[in-house]
């Protein structure tokens, strides 16, 4: 199980600042969140970024996640 930290207002929506998901990579994480926390679905659909051990990932499903990784959901980041 991976502990996933949710940013402020996402945590407010989910009613918890940290949730647990069974996942070994980014794809499984996103699917697990959608399934177990339906209140997060619209934010997930809008697009999110994920910080894994301090580095930021957007789309790579195969990105591995270890059980002791620090995983933080972020809002989708864009540059200019």
């Amino acid at each position, binding site marked *: 199980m991976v502990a996933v930290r949710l940013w402020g*207002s996402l945590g407010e929506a989910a009613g918890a600042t940290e949730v647990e998901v069974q996942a070994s990579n980014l794809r499984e994480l996103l699917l697990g969140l959608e399934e177990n926390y339906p209140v997060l679905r619209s934010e997930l659909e809008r697009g999110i970024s994920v910080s*894994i051990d301090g580095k930021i*990932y957007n*789309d790579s499903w195969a990105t591995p996640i270890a059980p002791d990784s620090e995983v933080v959901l*972020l809002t989708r980041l*864009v540059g200019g």
Partner: protein
Amino acid sequence: MAKDEYQAREFKVIGTRPIRPDGIDKVTGKAQYGADMSAPGMLWGAIKRSPHAHARIVSIDTSAASAMKGVKAVITRADFTHQPEDKANADVLDNCMAGERALYDGHAVAAVAATSKSIAAAALDAIKVDYEVLPHVTDVDDAVKPGAPIIHEGRQRENVPEGHNGNVISRTAFGHGDPEEGFKKADLIIERNFTTAATHQGYIEPNACLASLGADGQGEIWVCTQGHYMVRNVSAAVLGLDAGKIRATASEIGGGFGGKTHVWQEPVALKLSQEAGKPVKLVLNRDEVFRATGPTASSSADIKIGMTKDGKITAATCTYRLQSGAYPADNAMLAAMCGFAPYDLEHVRTEGLEVVTNRPKAAAYRAPGAPMGAFPVESVIDELCQKLDLDPLDTRLQNASREGTRAVYGPTYPAIGLEATLEAAKAHPHWTAPLGDNQGRGVACGFWFNFGGDTSVSLMVNLDGTVSLAEGNPDIGGSRAAMTMMAAEELGIPLDQVRTFIADTASLGQNENTHGSRVTYAVGLATIKAARHAIEVMKQRAAMKWGIDADAIEWKDGAAHPAGDNAGKFPPMSIKEIAAISSNTGGPIAGHHEANPEGAGVSFATHMVDTETDPETGAVKVLRYTVFQDAGKAIHPDYVEGQFQGGAAQGIGWALNEEYVYGEDGRLQNPGFLDYRIPVASDLPMIEPVILEIPNPGHPYGVRGVGETSIVPPLAAIANAVSRSSDVRLTALPMSPPKVLAAMKAK
């Protein structure tokens, strides 16, 4: 993927300053930008725009225009028959051509294509639009008040709590701890409101394209953009076409800074071309660029920071309201994420409220949201230091984020360069240089993310042994030079044997925009990997010639060498020699790399500036400016320095002079370079760039993206300098002379 790639080594080419490969064309006027291309039989496009900030479009009569000699197409929203399902693309379509309502002064309502510019202009005049003017709102704080006209009913996201009107589209919040508890521990608490005005990226080249679209949905578009793949994909989605049937070619680009990472008029040009059956050249004029392409958001922030008399920040809160124009965006969220990023805080809460107004659709502008995020934070920290008589650099060091700090936006930082920039600032002679009357010194820190993103690169070894490198990212800062250098370094061949091309969308896989400070990092990574791939292929060919295993071959100085005596006594085969036998040994030699390199890091900077205020006029002169920023590894130092200097200059303009001025009627009053005043050569001093190099573990050469961070610190650095020199805290940007004078007089 891009995890632990970095290998320290001695470089032959990286870190030197060769002349850029596209340089001669640019100094002789040969380089072709968006408006420099023509096609046989081409027509001129032009767009009719709403003169009202908010109006229902009752009817549009195009009959007189259509009947004019030389007019070959006239279109309105009714001609865009495809309705995109995706909300973001639906907003793009509505922005390209208004539907039921015009939402801002300058919103496109119709377009024509004609055989000359003057006929096109006359045709626009002949189009009759019947408007029903509606109440408008352009100020961010007015838009959230009860009674404000609501611009989009039913688009407020579920994350907005009760008590906010419908112009507050979205609310995000970040942070951790309990600020109320933290404030109790503070010896001094400062609470203020800070405002910033909307500014435009100010690229000197107006948006331009030459589009050709047939009845069969096959088309070509030549366009100045930061992302020709994005232009192709979004235009196709908006028009209901297959992306693969359209080829987009990136022209040279005359500045973007984020503003050209979006689609503005390209679908209109394609549609006009399809209707007319001819290529259409559509070039915006400067007035249109200001009114109808995306400036950045304006902001209003309520901030509170508490500090002990020893300089420890005990608690901080900030609510940011950002208006991003007439369509939903996410700039408030970015401000709320970035403002406190340089600081290690136990109790911090930020909130971002995204507001819509009757203004043009905002676009990204160099670290979107971050300058507005940092301005209040860096200003209040400075004021706390002033009042508690503490050193502003030492205080920042005391509270600085480092490896292991929990960022306000959530994750724990890995190794970062913030402290290094602060220490470099402290050690620099600028910090201790004497100041005269009416002069002040300000410092500020800034932060921005770096990105990876979809990248495709192809490296061809030609039959004569020279190398062609095809990449898909428009070159806005000298990236072709950097890619050429990385390919030459990796292959061990002279620089002049490599030429880098920006390929069109039909020649490479998907490429993410040139934005997010990503190109030197991501495209560089792909270039290095493509070169390594080509090297493996060439080793195989040498192996074939020598009759040994490819494992027994090493690549050095541009040639294949037997690795050690056991491999055999063969003289080295140069890239030229291997290329000459490519057809015999398996066919054309190329390396390629397609990836979405993620896990890019973050970039910190510290800026230092001296200003002098004229006590009679309130005019501020920038006397001295130094930028301290971590680049990981500077591939071509001229271009890294250029990014530091350019970002700082834009920040200076934002701090002192640039703003969108709206009248009571909701119209933009200053859509031109005379009254929207960007810094000119006589406004600025030399800008000293100090490059720090703390290698990024995720890149083979240690590269970090640098392009954006440099615009984040200047707003507060200058406000801090001016505030100290005039002994009054300035909280509203821009600090134009009348405002500074009024603040000094009110003291």
